């Protein structure tokens, strides 16, 4: 029931772009994205809702394809501060209208100067 993230790890040079994918085996109604730095709390990035809405945060944006049961996170012109582990979370509430999340295994992103 947990979403599957790919790739597991990415190494970038500053200024390069990256895409992180999150796939689910069940129907998706919403996807949350969080970033966690080592030893710190996961921090909210954005929520995508059913309808293919694309949202943005700084130079980070995401899309939601409910047909493919997949969400993708796009990091453009990466900065050193983007380093961390990215998690997608999908709702496991019985009514699919809540925020009781199950998280993927994470994608570790390292941005080098």
């Amino acid at each position, binding site marked *: 029931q947990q979403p599957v993230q790919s790739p597991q790890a990415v190494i970038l040079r500053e200024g390069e772009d990256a895409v992180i994918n999150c796939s689910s085996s069940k129907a998706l109604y919403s996807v949350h994205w969080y970033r966690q730095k080592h030893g710190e709390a996961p921090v909210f990035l954005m929520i995508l809702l059913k309808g293919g809405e694309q949202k943005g945060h700084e130079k980070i944006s995401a899309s939601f394809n409910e047909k493919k049961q997949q969400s993708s996170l796009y990091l453009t012109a990466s900065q050193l501060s983007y380093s961390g582990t990215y998690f997608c979370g999908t709702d496991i509430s019985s009514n699919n209208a809540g925020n009781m999340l199950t*998280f993927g295994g994470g994608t570790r992103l390292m941005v080098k100067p």
Partner: protein
Amino acid sequence: GAGVSQSPRYKVAKRGQDVALRCDPISGHVSLFWYQQALGQGPEFLTYFQNEAQLDKSGLPSDRFFAERPEGSVSTLKIQRTQQEDSAVYLCASSLVPMVNSPLHFGNGTRLTVT
């Protein structure tokens, strides 16, 4: 407070000891969640409260794990007779409302090491 506060930050317990982990959510937040995060893994759902009601505890790994939120604010996760496999970071999160577009605000977690 400004954010979700968890204590202690670190806890070392000998196998067989009981531990209690505390979570102070953001004031006014209705929903409270506990997650367990093993090293290098994503957070795994343990249990969910809406105010003082524990609506879901399907993720608790065994009956040694118990959580409560008696007055709908502070929550405590208790682990009885700790085992080595309980070693992990325990994260608490809260959200303003239990709705799909309400983000989770996480605390820094309690790192539990069972020796």
